[in-house]
């Protein structure tokens, strides 16, 4: 087996080790919020930070690993850089574990300035955290640049972005996965550069003692954080465009509409993050309105075109339902549902009520947990099964899928209900005014445990094939 494929296997292993651990931290948090496990209370915020950064990181690299494999079908990414990405990510994760588990660093996943300097943790914990993010950011930047380089070896920029489709041509064929990956990777480079800028500003304060403009750092931080999460999802979608057709015996081709929708994403995705700053009265009003427009424009067209395309693909097709195709289908559904929740919250009038309630984790957990996670898990299973070709039991897989759906949406529903009932996010325990938050948390912990069991069964199915492929 070649190195590139071995690397994909390594990513599968890394994901399937880290995800259950981070998930258990999530269940632990909901248990604490339900007034259980009072001994773990003081760990709520360190765990919340680890869970948040960890999950965002794991599913970003998961999506990248899948996209890399898809891109490798058409052109040749560097296997050495792919290995480098694994090493760099591992180092970053170790640093992260150290600063949270030993240093009790707890500034939340987007470490909003100046919190890292102000918390109850030692200075070294904050520096180690920043170092971890630096290592991860630099590694991922190099990885993204290499994938872009690989695409550029085969496609010119106008082909890679499908501009000829927009111009009315139908030839040459460019796989939609290439168009979407190019859009996502260009966005990735920008957001990682924004991340680097944030880190430089933090370091300047730490080392040279200068002071930063909080508004600038907050803008850059969400440029980094929002776009990173957003493009992870888009990379996952690229994978679906490429793999789902194999289960319907029909091609899914790019066309004018697909090209227009993804180019409009690229044009406007950098302004959507303004919706994270609606509550910041210092932010210029123009940015606020741009934020609302960009939030709609960078999500709706691409989602509508994709979901309509997927439905057209599946409709009356000789569909082969397997764990992979079902996960993909469910993932698109989760993306759509979470997307609606997100668009609702990115509407200024609504945001002034929902900001920092559990509605926020509700919608982003929807398109991550029932969207991106399922896209990546679907592809992982596809990859190992394609190589191992072991017999499959659709009945057993339906059990896994049901646990993932029932557990997942039950867990999410508790977030939505709490959010709509004014329960704030990021409260380790709930004060009397929002005491109802505690009972929702209890139900959520139970549902999340069902999801967890489903995940374990999935891991057994994928693990068997993984071992078989590994030989």
């Amino acid at each position, binding site marked *: 087996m070649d190195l590139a494929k071995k690397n994909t296997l390594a990513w599968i292993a890394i994901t399937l080790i880290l995800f259950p651990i981070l998930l258990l931290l999530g269940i632990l948090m909901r248990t604490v919020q339900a007034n259980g496990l009072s001994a773990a209370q003081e760990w709520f915020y360190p765990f919340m930070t680890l869970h948040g950064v960890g999950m965002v990181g794991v599913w970003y690299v998961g999506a990248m690993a899948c996209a890399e494999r898809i891109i490798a079908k058409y052109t040749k990414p560097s296997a050495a850089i792919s290995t480098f990405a694994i090493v760099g990510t591992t180092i970053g994760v170790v640093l992260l574990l150290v600063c949270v588990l030993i240093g009790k660093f707890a500034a939340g996943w987007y470490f909003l300035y100046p919190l890292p*300097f*102000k918390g109850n943790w030692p*200075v*070294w914990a904050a*520096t180690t955290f920043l170092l971890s993010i630096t290592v991860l950011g630099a590694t991922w930047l190099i990885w993204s*640049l290499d994938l*872009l*380089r690989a695409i*550029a*070896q*085969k*496609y*010119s*920029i106008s*082909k*890679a972005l499908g501009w000829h489709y927009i111009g009315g041509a139908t030839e040459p064929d460019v796989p939609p996965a290439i168009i979407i990956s190019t859009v996502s990777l*260009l*966005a990735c*480079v*920008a*957001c990682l*550069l*924004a991340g680097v*800028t944030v880190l430089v*500003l933090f370091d*300047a304060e*730490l*080392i040279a*003692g*200068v*002071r*930063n*403009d909080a*508004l*600038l750092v907050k*803008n*850059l931080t969400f*440029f980094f954080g929002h776009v990173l999460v957003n493009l992870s999802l888009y990379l996952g979608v690229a994978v679906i465009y490429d793999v789902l057709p194999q289960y319907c015996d029909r091609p899914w081709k790019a066309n004018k509409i697909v090209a227009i929708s993804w180019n409009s994403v690229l044009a406007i995705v*950098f302004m959507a993050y303004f919706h994270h700053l609606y509550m910041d*009265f*210092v932010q*210029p009003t123009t940015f606020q309105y741009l934020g609302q427009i960009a939030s709609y424009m960078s999500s709706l067209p691409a989602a509508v075109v994709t979901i309509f395309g997927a439905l057209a693909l599946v409709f009356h097709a000789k569909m082969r339902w397997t764990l992979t195709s079902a996960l993909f289908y469910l993932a698109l559904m989760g993306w759509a549902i979470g997307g609606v929740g997100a668009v609702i919250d990115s509407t200024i009038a609504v945001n002034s009520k929902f900001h920092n309630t559990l509605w926020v984790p509700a919608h982003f957990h929807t398109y991550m947990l029932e969207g991106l996670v399922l896209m990546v898990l679907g592809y992982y299973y596809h990859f190992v099964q394609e190589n191992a070709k072991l017999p499959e039991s659709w009945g057993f897989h339906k059990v896994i899928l049901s646990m993932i759906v029932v557990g997942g949406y039950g867990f999410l529903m508790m977030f939505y209900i709490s959010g709509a009932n004014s329960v704030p996010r990021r409260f380790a325990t709930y004060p009397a005014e929002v005491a109802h938050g505690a009972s929702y948390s209890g139900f959520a912990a139970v549902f999340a445990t069902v999801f967890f069991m489903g995940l374990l069964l999935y891991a057994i199915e994928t693990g068997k094939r993984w071992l078989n492929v590994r030989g």
Partner: protein
Amino acid sequence: MFAVKRLVGILLPWLLAIPTTAAIADEIMRTEAKGLYKSLPDIPVQIANGQTQPLSSFWKDKPVLLTLFYRRCSGSCSPFLMNLKSAVEDSGGLGDFYQVVALSFDPRDTLEDLQQSAATFKLDQSPDWHFAVADAASIAKIADTIGFWFKKIPTDQEQFDHPSMIAAIRDGKIVRVLVGTEIPHARMRDLIYEVKGVFVPFLAVPGKDTIFRCFKIDPKTGTLRLDWGILILMAPALLAALIGYFIFRRKPAP
């Protein structure tokens, strides 16, 4: 090994020093925030010409910059009042938008002391500077509201330990407080905008200048202007476009 030691030697003092400087700035900000938006108690004060009037009679006329001092201070009071005078002259608007009330917190200060103080700073002819005294109980109420404190120095019964503060009062409410003997002009301008009723959407953190602000406030007109920070905000996207251009510049192999 040697290199590591050196690196630690270079970094350690920084790492240790940062929390302390940050702590001082934090302390100042906390004091400045303590009294914000509280209503000032309306105490009777006696001004240098002997007249007694309620403190509210000042803010009913115009917003007030209120400060506390005492005549015999051999420490910060004199330099502070000098700084205040020059900051006021520099920023303009005295008499048009606001007046200054310098209230003595030492019950021993007499009307004569007030007149002398005014004369020392050549402010005795200024209609918008008022030097005043009040009884101890009233002073205590004011000090408590704006977050001011003072205590006798054990070795010298004449002298007090105390901070230097300016409280900006509009319609009887504290709208902004500055702490420190030095009065940076940018912070003074913000204070005066606030006292005029112009909303200043950001606070300069005391002690250091902020690098790369998104906006600055125009000292003449009070309008917000873009600053260098905005350019930094656009840099990642522009740089990414440039990198994209270079990556895709070469013709792909056929």
